[in-house]
């Protein structure tokens, strides 16, 4: 078990999310940056779908009551075990009562803590991903206990040959496909949007990222239609909203662009004020 001494800014249990429940209006959820989450699991030889902790901006302080191995990937938040700095993207051996903490955010926004065998919270509708209204809470809190199976058989060499692709944290270009309503934009608007520089607004979370600037002409609303994580909506007031992993299953704003899965991962590592460009891609 892990004792949560401090929960951090926004820490939640996530996995690959829910598949097959969209028809009931259930969001997909799952790790915002699926690449980094799966990388942390791969370092430990876990399954892709093993549940991890997604930590945001300010990390938690956690005490492990049983030995195990962990790996941390994604944003660099200066992790330390018993106040001694530890490496990211590698196997960390944890002994009874060790305390994991985080310091300054150096790069990115979200980091993933994988644990051997995965976190063992209750599965709801096929997934452990926390989402309000589906699981009992949407994030962990101080004094929570997090369950895992202890692990003693330390294999340092495990998966030592995989290399973390740092471009997820460093690039500012998002690959996008044309969205279902892209062709409703005038040629002028298409060119203007595709050649813009964007900033992440302060309204950014697991449901959606709003981008700046505003565009002069929006589009009329559409009949409520399916949307996906990564769908870029253009509101009548000219605002671009990028839907993220916790987004609703349907929406009424025109869907002008669609982020690639990699672009969703990249955007998940951005925060207020970060600059972005987009690049149109064909399938």
């Amino acid at each position, binding site marked *: 078990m892990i004792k949560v001494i401090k929960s951090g800014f926004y820490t939640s249990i996530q996995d690959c999310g829910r598949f097959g429940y969209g028809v009931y209006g259930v969001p997909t959820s799952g790790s915002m940056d699926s690449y980094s989450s799966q990388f942390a699991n791969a370092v430990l030889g876990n399954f892709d779908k093993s549940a991890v902790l997604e930590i945001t901006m300010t990390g938690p302080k956690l005490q492990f009551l049983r030995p195990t191995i962990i790996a941390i990937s994604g944003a660099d938040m200066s992790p330390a075990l018993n106040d001694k700095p530890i490496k990211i993207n590698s196997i960390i051996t944890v002994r009874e009562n060790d305390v994991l903490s985080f310091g300054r955010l150096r790069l990115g926004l979200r980091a993933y803590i994988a644990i051997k065998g995965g976190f063992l919270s209750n599965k709801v509708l096929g997934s452990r991903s926390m989402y309000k209204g589906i699981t009992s809470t949407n994030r962990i809190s101080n004094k929570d206990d997090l369950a895992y199976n202890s692990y003693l058989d330390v294999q340092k060499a495990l998966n030592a040959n995989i290399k973390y692709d740092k471009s997820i944290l460093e690039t500012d270009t998002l690959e996008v496909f044309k969205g279902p309503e892209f062709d409703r934009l005038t040629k002028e608007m298409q060119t203007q949007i595709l050649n813009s520089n964007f900033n992440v607004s302060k309204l950014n979370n697991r449901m959606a990222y709003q981008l700046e600037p505003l565009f002069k002409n929006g589009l009329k609303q559409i009949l409520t239609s*399916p949307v996906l994580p990564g769908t870029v909506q253009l509101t009548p007031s000219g605002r671009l909203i990028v839907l993220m992993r916790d987004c609703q299953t*349907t929406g009424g704003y025109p869907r002008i662009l669609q982020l690639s899965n990699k672009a969703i991962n990249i955007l998940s590592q951005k925060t207020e004020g970060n600059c972005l460009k987009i690049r149109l891609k064909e399938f």
Partner: protein
Amino acid sequence: MAFNLKYFRYNESSILIEWPAVIDENLLKDILNYKKYIENYYIKQKVEVINSYSSLLIKYNVTIDNINDRLKELKALYRNRNNIYFTKPVIWNIPVCYDTEFGVDLDAFVQEKKLSKSEVISIYSDVIYTVYFIGFLPGFLYLGGLDNRLFLDRKTTPNLNVKKGSVAIGGQQTGIYPQDSPGGWHVIGNSPIQLFNTKQNTPCIIKAGDKVKFSPVDKLEHKNILDKVNTSNYQIKSISNND
């Protein structure tokens, strides 16, 4: 009836199929019938098919390698379909209490529409609504069929906490909030039934294509039903359908 459908690759692993953008029951039947064909065709793979008023979204759980093959098989399914999957829709009876404790916007609504409270309740209860799809929140039913005498634009400032079970009208639409949520619709009553339950394999009993009828209940019956719901002793009832 065959419609001219538009096929669109939505992302690495999804295809969107679009019908003409209208709210129409015959269109819904065609969509749901095609949906069944697609689900049966892919029965051995993990594929999720989601509908809305005028589209189907097909989510594969792997990247689509050959889009032309997928489109060819989907188009053939539409060409060769018939109506064998069409079954008589279930009509669900949903109890609603219009006491002002629950219908927090009912007085204002009545004034705005220049109708009496009992007129609003009877117009609202007379209709058999069609469930088009579920979206917005887990278990939120998009219902069609609201009487145009009850159309009222959404509030300009949304309410930050609309209570679970609130029965509300927004523009030409009506629905029931399955959980506490912010919302901009006018709340006229409350239903004690549980629309979404994660403990069930099928978390929503009511599905697209079903019908819904609202029956007025008083405060006491609302409480009785709510008690049963809270102890898992309430089953939502269907009315026999003879149309």
